[in-house]
């Protein structure tokens, strides 16, 4: 087999991508007939996704890694570095030589601000006194290695192309492995979890019809059908070669999510939640469309990469320019040192309506930046919707109406992370201002969701808000310039969050309720679940030994986010410290609510004995995946596995160096490697650890040891508690602000159609009728009818006369004919005679 990456990767990944589709199609048509009640459909889906996983692994370990040398460990394995070198610069980074030199150059912009966090440790570096140093020189990185191509075209109009194609780099391969691995686990888990659906009829205890529980046929195969379609769509997003294709699969995962949330469509809450999810996502897609339009109109392409030949080499024109440059190559050209500079077409597009602005902006060096901002924020809007960021976060908690495996796969690990993935993918096109928007949104989201999670009692909703909050972390990281940090957290989070959800599913499976107030003490009944969940909790709070490379996966990724926030705050100072503060406080809250959840569920005395007595450990088909995921949740981020190195390989063009704002002039996005500076690392690590510790300790005080009565706390903070309990009243607010007005406008418009337009028509018709009635009486009946009636009477009389000739006698008829002919001829001759004379 030919294992050169340019040929093998697209084929391998396409096969991995299409296998779930095949599974979907098969189950769609013959699912019910596969085994008893469609049982084999589940195995089929599992087989497809496991095969996809194996193919992804082949792509990763047999094709990608042997052909692409990982960068020498430095950036990613910061703990390692921190230990061994402890502040000494590592000059062995041959890829970013200059960047490495700059690594220890702290961002002296902070010197302008007198923040209490600015420690003397920085003073030795004051020589580098230029805040914009990061982006000067030629520090920006070239495009990563990628393979790009088109499979087929949806439409081509002159130079404009909408295609279905691939863009494969290290991130793509990594995401493939991650998605297929988690999906495999979830599929296997679901074989056990959805076992009830194999019964025919299935009893749905949450729906009451005519006073009885609903009985319906099982839908085991349908579930796996949707899961397969989802996997196909999700992998489509990952492999997509252009924004349009991302959008296509973006919507497809949305619809899969719709089907899966609405899987129990008999439940009104489930179908409403499904609608809500899809419509809210569409709001995000609306923004995404605007961003796409801005790009499309100004750049004329959606492609991520440049056109490549069969060997994976960029196709060049005769003059040496890139033949068909993608978005990133247009925005960050080599001539500009891979810095983000709006191309001429964008400047022209921005100012086409008003040349006066052009001159003004050009003078200020801002030309084209507004459009860039619109494009960036627009694309980000899509991510806001999909990743449930504020203000579109409202759908995700409701999405927990779906079966728990769905929550584990779709609504925590993969689909909702797609927003983060897209921000990462699209990163080179975000101008610093757009990144600021991303950071603000991420920051708001993470704190907002964390506060709500503190009061929630539904086990899955707590996890859902936790997901929202963690996604906010990722967005924050990306917005602050931490590309690797954000995507790193994306991958680690996928493992531990799917683990947490599956554990919660296991609990729900055992006690048949979602409400934590009815659980307690389950640790003894279901130890595997309890301890794997504990691993998940520890991973999510970032448990680890500070300043050492020992810890759960979240420890590495969350620390790097906080480091990046620290670095950013140092660079910009002022209010930008709020990002850091929120990140740290958020970490504390995360720890609190996660352990609140664990304590309430697994420790203490059972609150509902009936449920407790019926509880049991889940079957092996469910606990197996838990254990597997737990292992990954612990170890996936360990420096030995070089995950960050892999991500670093995919570092998008020009983004390693950060950048500075044009529209907001003093905004600086620091280069990511700057956050590995030992002084930042030290303090960030301690801050993260202490905040997590405080959180866990607080949870233990209230829920484990019971020193404080939660009910009394509630009473004391009643207004806040009510606010949080009602999720900051977002649902009510949106209902009041958008839904009711939309329905109102709809009714008004419908009424306008009937009441105004149709009224006008009826009025016209009525007028015409009135006129015609008058006309009828005056003109028709008297004048016209009179004439006509007279004529008719005459005709009648004449007919009576003629009737006499109708004798019925044949012989007389002959005579009439003869005489008639004769008279006609006579008349003719007479007429001819008269005319002649």
């Amino acid at each position, binding site marked *: 087999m030919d294992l050169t990456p340019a040929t093998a990767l697209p084929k391998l990944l396409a096969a991995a991508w299409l296998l779930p589709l095949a599974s979907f199609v098969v189950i769609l048509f013959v699912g019910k007939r596969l085994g008893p009640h469609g049982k084999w459909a589940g195995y089929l889906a599992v087989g497809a996704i496991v095969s996809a996983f194996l193919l992804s692994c082949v792509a990763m370990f047999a094709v990608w890694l042997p052909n692409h040398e990982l960068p020498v460990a430095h950036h990613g394995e910061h703990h390692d570095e921190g230990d061994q070198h402890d502040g000494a610069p590592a000059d062995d980074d041959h890829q970013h030589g200059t960047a490495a030199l700059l690594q220890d150059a702290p961002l002296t912009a902070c010197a302008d601000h007198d923040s209490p966090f600015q420690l003397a440790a920085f003073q030795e570096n004051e020589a580098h006194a230029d805040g914009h140093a990061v982006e000067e020189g030629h520090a920006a990185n070239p495009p990563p290695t990628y393979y790009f191509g088109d499979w*087929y075209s949806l439409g081509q109009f002159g130079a404009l192309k909408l295609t279905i194609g691939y863009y494969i780099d290290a991130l793509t391969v990594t995401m493939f492995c991650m998605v297929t691995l988690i999906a495999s686990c979830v599929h296997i888990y679901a074989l056990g979890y959805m076992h009830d659906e194999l019964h025919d009829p299935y009893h749905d205890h949450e729906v009451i019809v005519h006073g009885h529980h609903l009985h*319906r046929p099982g839908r085991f195969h349908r579930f796996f059908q949707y899961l397969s379609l989802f996997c196909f769509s999700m992998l489509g997003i990952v492999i997509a070669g252009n924004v349009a294709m991302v959008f296509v699969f973006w919507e497809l995962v949305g619809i899969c999510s719709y089907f899966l949330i609405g899987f129990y469509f008999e439940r009104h809450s489930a179908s409403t939640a499904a*609608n809500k999810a*899809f419509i809210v996502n569409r709001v995000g897609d609306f923004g995404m469309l605007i961003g796409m339009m*801005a790009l499309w109109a100004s750049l004329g392409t959606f492609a991520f990469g440049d056109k490549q030949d069969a060997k994976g080499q960029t196709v060049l024109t005769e003059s040496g320019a890139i033949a068909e440059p993608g978005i990133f190559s247009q925005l960050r050209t080599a001539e500009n040192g891979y810095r983000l500079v709006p191309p001429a077409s964008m400047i022209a597009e921005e100012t086409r309506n008003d040349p006066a602005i052009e001159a003004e902006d050009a003078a200020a060096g801002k030309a084209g930046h507004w459009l860039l901002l619109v494009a960036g924020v627009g694309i980000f809007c899509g991510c806001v919707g999909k990743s449930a960021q504020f203000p579109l976060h409202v759908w995700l908690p409701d999405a927990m109406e779906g079966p728990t495996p769905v929550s584990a796969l779709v609504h925590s690990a993969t689909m909702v992370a797609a927003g983060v993935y897209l921000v990462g993918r699209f990163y080179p096109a975000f101008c610093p201002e757009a990144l600021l928007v991303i950071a603000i949104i991420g920051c708001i989201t993470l704190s907002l969701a964390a506060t709500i999670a503190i009061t929630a009692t539904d086990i899955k909703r707590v996890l859902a808000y936790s997901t929202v909050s963690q996604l906010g972390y990722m967005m924050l990281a990306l917005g602050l310039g931490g590309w690797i940090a954000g995507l790193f957290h994306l991958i680690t989070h996928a493992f531990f969050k799917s683990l947490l959800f599956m554990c919660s599913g296991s609990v729900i499976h055992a006690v048949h309720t979602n409400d934590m107030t009815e659980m307690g003490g389950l640790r003894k009944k279901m130890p595997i679940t309890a301890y794997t969940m504990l691993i998940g909790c520890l991973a999510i709070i970032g448990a680890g030994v500070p300043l050492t490379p020992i810890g759960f996966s979240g420890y590495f990724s969350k620390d790097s986010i906080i480091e990046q926030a620290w670095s950013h705050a140092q660079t910009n100072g002022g209010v930008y410290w709020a990002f850091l503060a929120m990140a740290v406080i958020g970490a504390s809250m995360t720890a609190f609510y996660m352990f609140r959840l664990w304590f309430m569920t697994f420790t203490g005395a059972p609150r509902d004995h009936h449920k407790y007595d019926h509880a049991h450990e889940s079957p092996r088909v469910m606990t197996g995946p838990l254990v597997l995921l737990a292992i990954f949740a612990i170890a996936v981020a360990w420096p030995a596995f070089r995950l960050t190195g892999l991500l670093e390989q995919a570092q998008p063009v020009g983004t390693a160096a950060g950048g500075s704002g044009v529209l907001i002039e003093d905004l600086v996005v620091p280069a990511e490697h700057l956050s590995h500076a030992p002084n930042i690392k030290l303090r960030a690590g301690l801050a993260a650890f202490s905040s997590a510790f405080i959180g866990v300790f607080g949870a233990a005080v209230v829920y484990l040891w019971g020193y404080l009565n939660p009910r009394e706390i509630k009473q004391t903070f009643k207004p806040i508690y009510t606010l949080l309990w009602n999720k900051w009243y977002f649902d009510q607010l949106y209902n009041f602000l958008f839904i009711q007005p939309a329905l109102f406008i709809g009714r008004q*418009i419908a009424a306008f159609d009937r009441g105004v337009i149709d009224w006008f028509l009826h009025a016209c018709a009525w007028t015409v009728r009135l006129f015609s009635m008058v006309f009828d009486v005056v003109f028709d009946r008297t004048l016209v009818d009179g004439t006509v009636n007279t004529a008719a009477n005459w005709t009648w009389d004449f007919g009576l006369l003629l009737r006499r000739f109708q004798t019925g006698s044949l012989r007389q008829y002959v005579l009439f004919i003869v005489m008639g002919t004769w008279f006609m001829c006579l008349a003719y001759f007479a007429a001819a005679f008269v005319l002649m004379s």
Partner: protein
Amino acid sequence: MNLSDPIVYLSLMVFLPALGALALAFFPRGNEEAIRYTTLAVTILTFMLSLGLFFDARGVEFKSGVAEMQDMFSAPWIPSFGIQFLMGLDGISFPLVVLTTFLSILAFIASWSITKHIKAFCILYLLLETGMIGVFMALDFFLFYVLWEVMLLPMYFLIGVWGGPRKEYAAIKFFLYTLVGSVLMLIAILMLYFNSDLTLLNDEQLARAGVFKVEARAQETVAEREARVKAAAQEWRDSEDALAMRFKEITAETDPAKKRQLHTFNILALQHIGQHEDSPFNREAWLGKSIQWWAFVLLFIGFAIKVPSVPLHTWLPDAHVEAPTPISMILAGVLLKMGGYGILRICYPICPAAGYDLAYIVCLVGVVSMVWGAFAALAQNDFKRMVAYSSVSHMGYVVLGLGVWSLGMWSATTPGSFTYNADYWKMGVNGAMFQMIAHGISSAGMFFCVGVLYDRVHHRNLNEFGGIMARMPVYSGFAIVIFFAGLGLPGLCGFIGEVFVVLSVWKYSQLLAVISAAVVILTAAYILWAIQRVYLGAEYKGPHGEALTPMLPREFAIAVPLTVFAIILGVYPQALLNYMQPSVDQQVQQLADWTERFDASREALKKSLGEEEEQVALAVPASLPTTPAALKTSIESSARPAQ
């Protein structure tokens, strides 16, 4: 009969249903099954004929990738007015013809449940099909008009006789609305006819207009083609053809004072005349606007009624609600497309200056329809009415796409250079065309889905459904796919057209682009809400619940093709674009070239006037007049106070 002759083949395609109707007229009454099967056979045969065009078996073939009119033929009809029986197919009409014949079969299968006056129903149905196919094929304006009316009458009866409780109201409303459009169209037709002059055209244009025949050849140089066209033109002029003789007579007249015009109804010739530099349509007609401006407005109103665009849309919900299911399918699937087709085939190419001037209005009408229809659909409780309003919304995309007139493309390689590049415009118009076909499939499917339920439970109140998914799972599966196609879900046909249109609009107007993009939210809202209320949920809430039996094989036979096509077009749009795009692109390119000339002449005029008096350039009114002549007068008049 020689089927390899387009005149026979295409005429047969158009008139086969009418012949079928004639034959049915002689069927004895009471033999309902035979009548039904005969009608079905005729529709299938017509469809087979249209499918035959995909292949070269008979010598009459529609080739993909060809932009020009294909299989064009003409026969004199009313020679004294130059009216011809002129028909032909190109990428714009061919997909619509195939859609028509295809939907005619499906809709007829859907009408199996009709029991009242079967014979009359079938006869009218077949006549309607003849009218529909004919309208798409006709290239003579008069013929177009006649067939347009031919299609109107059967529709009136089909709604008025076989409709629901308020059928008379709906039928009359439909009829009057459409008739108003027809009358306006007739006025415009006559305006254009009496101002047209065939002698303005050069040989190539005459050949393209089908005035005389020049075989298309695949590989030949420009010069070769020119020579062939010239020879053919000469041969035509020397022939005894009545038109040729008049043409010769008029062109021979050297005295311009005595020179007469050779009027024509040929749509293609009118297009060339409209895009001619000295187009006679540029003459001022009324209120300072040119003939073509008024013609455009009249035609556009006529077609907008058919589309239908807000505020001329209120016949549609009533007609749909009252019409029986198959007629709704035809109405939404085919009849609405005639409006879009007319705008594309007639309005823009014949009256380009007016189109240029009014492009924003057209786009605005499209956007308003989209928003309006979506909001109104949100408020409906009647299932069919909701679907009808969704048609208004979806057809808004068509009007918007057709109205896009964006020519600016700033080259990425040479900063600041402005080139006339119609790529975005092509995208918009192709998107609009695609949307027409896609909507033909999805809306027909949606109405069919409503009809399946209505046949069973005899009501359409959205609030009294629920739980259909559990009762009729297969049907619900199809219905959901079709409704998602209407929603514009990727992978289904509705997505492609919408996304093409929306993406192309930004280049023309950012405001309209943003509004049109916002419609995706509303669309999702009303469709999902309807799905929730009808298909999801635990139990059926309305009357006649016991009648909710699974899908019949007959209904299955309708749902499957619709679903399959919805998926094929969504996944592989090239299947359609291959046939459609060359013609659309060619037309857009012609208009783009025209615009370039037009702008250049306008600029030159401005410059020449501006050099004399500098204020003049500043005093040019914001809304530019449509013709150079009108511009000149307006500039002069505005310049006068300054002097």
